């Protein structure tokens, strides 16, 4: 009888067995994340799911206590975007003991016991890095000789930064001996960071051929520095970045960014489908990893894709 006591708030006056989903978001550190949150909220509303949302302000301990409080509140399904990949076993075991299924979004966790979560809805940062390298291959098609690359890293220690660098490096080392990363610094995923770091790079290195940026925002910042240095972004310095935010596409449609690897935040609908399936007791039919729908874009596709960018 205690299955669903959450009645005082939320649109569940119908009295029918509405699903309650406890969702713990990483935080609100970027526009990408805001779009992600919005997508989850809208999709929950559309699917008639009662969403309990909490924001962890980038802190794992907040996420853990949020998950604990969802367990205490006896929600039907728990979902979260892990801040970091490690350290979830204890709380996930508690959830399992309470009989509440868990769905991960956005990124995976390292765990000793794969039964602790049902499925992951999201993308893979390392593969994004690999995709970025492949896009660079396309961008450089016809280019001969050594390629000097500057890299704008994300926040030091953050998973996307590490994995995207890793994926990119993997392809580079495997098949492009002529590529070298001559400068690499963190721009903290921000425009201001990207701009400052790129300005410094341009002072120290006059011969950068390519900029690989871990997200669009840093690339946008870097473009301004490249212009201030009297060079033409996209031509003098080729730019490849990851994310696919609206402003990134705008820049790409102007030819300032050469290629963007999309990392789609709009995974709300896919998540809600998974939640319903899991709640219906059919979790075992789901794949372990539900990949988000995302694509790779080059400058010539930008203008066409621009109107459809929602975030």
């Amino acid at each position: 009888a205690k299955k669903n006591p959450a009645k005082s708030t939320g649109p569940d006056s119908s009295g029918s067995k509405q699903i309650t989903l406890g969702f713990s978001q990483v935080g609100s550190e970027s526009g990408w994340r805001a779009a992600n949150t919005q997508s989850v909220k809208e999709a929950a509303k559309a699917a008639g799911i009662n969403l309990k949302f909490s924001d962890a302000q980038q802190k794992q301990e907040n996420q853990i206590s949020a998950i604990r409080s969802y367990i205490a509140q006896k929600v039907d399904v728990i979902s979260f975007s892990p801040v970091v990949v490690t350290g979830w076993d204890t709380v996930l075991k508690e959830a399992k003991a309470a009989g509440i299924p868990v769905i991960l979004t956005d990124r995976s966790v390292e765990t000793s016991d794969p039964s602790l979560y049902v499925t992951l809805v999201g993308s893979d940062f390392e593969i994004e890095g690999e995709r970025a390298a492949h896009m660079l291959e396309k961008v450089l098609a016809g280019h001969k000789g050594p390629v000097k690359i500057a890299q704008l890293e994300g926040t030091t220690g953050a998973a996307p930064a590490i994995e995207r660098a890793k994926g990119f490096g993997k392809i580079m080392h495997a098949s492009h001996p002529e590529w070298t990363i001559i400068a690499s610094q963190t721009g903290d995923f921000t425009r201001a960071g990207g701009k400052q770091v790129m300005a410094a790079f341009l002072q120290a290195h006059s011969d950068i051929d390519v900029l690989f940026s871990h997200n669009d925002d840093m690339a946008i910042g870097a473009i301004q520095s490249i212009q201030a240095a009297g060079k033409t972004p996209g031509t003098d310095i080729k730019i490849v970045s990851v994310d696919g935010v609206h402003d990134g596409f705008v820049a790409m449609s102007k030819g300032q960014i050469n290629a963007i690897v999309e990392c789609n935040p709009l995974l709300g609908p896919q998540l809600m489908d998974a939640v319903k399936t899991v709640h219906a007791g059919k979790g075992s039919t789901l794949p372990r990893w539900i990949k988000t729908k995302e694509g790779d874009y080059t400058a010539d596709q930008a203008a066409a894709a621009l109107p459809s960018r929602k975030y």
Partner: protein
Amino acid sequence: MSVIDGFRTRAEGLRLLQDRRLPVLVTAGLFVLMFGFGAFRYQSYGFLDAQVFMNLFIDNGYLLVAAVGATFVILTGGIDLSVGSVIGFTTMLTAWLVEKQGLPLLLVAPIALGVGAFGGYLMGYVIHHFEIEPFIVTLAGLFFFRGLCLVISKESISITDPTVDRLAQTHVPLPGGSFLSIAAVISLAVLALAFYVLHYTRFGRRVYAIGGNEQSALLMGLPVAGTKIAVYTVSGFCSALSGLLFTLYIQSGDPLHAVGLELDAIAAVVVGGTLLTGGSGYVIGTLFGVLVLGLIKTLIQFEGTLSSWWTKIATGVLLFAFILIQRTMTGRRRT
């Protein structure tokens, strides 16, 4: 004969207002009130479940230990900004030593505590002997230890060591079916020990004396240098211990763990009625400070409908409301 007898006539009410214990009492009272409010508002969500209350200790045990350490420093009139970084560093060091170097936790724990305490000692040494402001030295400490985390590894390290697992998942049962974690129990023990040290040892009283007036303490012939350095050592030690508890809580090392936690610790101390100018406050107040901060988080989680930014605004507003009420109830003390 001489004349001070008039002093006895002082109004009792005034005396109560002057009492240094008042802020702590008010904090505790307000905490209970706030908890009652939560219980009332979220009763159908199981807020009154004893475990919700125990979770405050389980989820904030590490913060309590860190804040206790910070209390020592703040009581001397100093400040320690390196707390969060030392915690993060300890998780990293522990994870690395246990997982990558295969050392047993029994050996790693003292190493980690030693490193934290030594870090605190160094900062205390520089602060005292070279007369550089604690804010700056510990800010450098903040940068330094966070940097060391990244130097150990940019990636987080998951801990699969069975001892850690067992410790992390042991429940200490309490009457009524609820439980505490080992970390929570340790944190309460640390609190009790700190209370004892501050109020029943000479060292503790020296801490208060230095906070009251460092120059006077020196002229009174107290070993100011040793005490000041010791206080930062204690804080470093507590941060490292807090880091170990955090490691148990989270079972991983991550270079970005506990970023900004020093501000939570300082806020907890101050909310608990301790003055940043030093010399006045109680470590019990720190407990209530931690509980209040934890409760604010819990309330927001139970509310469950706040967007990311409203979470921040609500945190600020609750903190403000709390401090405002606390402030009006304790009155303004005459200087």
